[in-house]
């Protein structure tokens, strides 16, 4: 099945804008993140930490609702879901 991914700001430059990733039926959020990690390759350091986990300040949303870090392994995705990922900024 296909999941749509919207990346913003620096993440859009790394992952591309408005991409669709293919994941197996019944896949959980962790699977989608793993596909994004592969896609980011060497440039993924601003999104994922050394262990491959999403950096703690990064905001992840599914269909417009925030996803808690504790739900990554259990949140089952559906065909056509939209996942949004973006880095909050801090400057002024």
């Amino acid at each position, binding site marked *: 099945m296909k999941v749509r991914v919207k990346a*913003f*700001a620096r993440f*859009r*430059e790394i992952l591309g804008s408005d991409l669709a990733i293919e994941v197996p039926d019944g896949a959980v959020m962790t699977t989608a993140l793993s596909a994004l990690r592969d896609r980011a390759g060497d440039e993924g350091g601003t999104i994922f930490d050394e262990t491959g986990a999403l950096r703690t300040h990064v905001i992840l949303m599914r269909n*417009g609702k*925030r996803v808690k870090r504790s739900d990554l392994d259990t949140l089952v995705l559906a065909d056509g879901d939209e996942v*949004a990922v*973006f880095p909050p900024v801090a*400057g002024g």
Partner: protein
Amino acid sequence: MLLERERERYARQILLFGEEGQERLKGAKVFIAGAGGLGCPIALYLAVAGIGEIRIADRDTVDRTNLNRQVLHWERDLGTPKAGSAEAKLREANPDIRIKAFATTIDETNVRDLVAGADLIVDAMDNFPTRYLLNREALRSGVPLIHGAIRGFDGQATTIVPGKTACLECIFPEAPPAEVFPVVGTTPGVIGMIQANEAIKYLLGREDLLANRLLLWDGMATTLETYTVERRPDCPACSPGVRP
């Protein structure tokens, strides 16, 4: 009551929201935290809109590297406190309002006094620790906080109404890493205008604020989107029982 010259100065916006709306702005007190990339355009536009009292605080002095974006500070101001530099320009832009400038670091010891009596706090800081402090003070005092932040061509904004909307710690439980951030002046210009516009709407009592919505501006893609945000039941800043 508006003076005759005020009726004239604000004639075009009185067409929008009437003398009653203009009087609301005249009676308003706004605290702008920061006189940098965001604080300069926010303060300038709120001043010319006729906000009755603008308080602005910044601890820094003007550096040449500020001049690509901090539009109230000019070559002649190099080495002088940003608070005084901003105050001088704002007074010249609109002599009919009160400007109170504070060349000070916003911290636990003074945030209460800086916010006291204000109708609104506008976040124009460049770091999350001070933003979290402003958020806690907003929650404690009940004064709404209009958040904005930028980096490069990107920015974000949201309006926090204590007790009603998600607070800053609900939305950003973890601060982004501190850095010397790259920035072009148009980015704080865009986000600062969104914040100033929110401030004016809030003071006029209008609905449809950026409440429980996080706005994301991507200047390289020229996209602007808003995402729904929610209060976190376990938020250390605003959840009942944890709230200071």
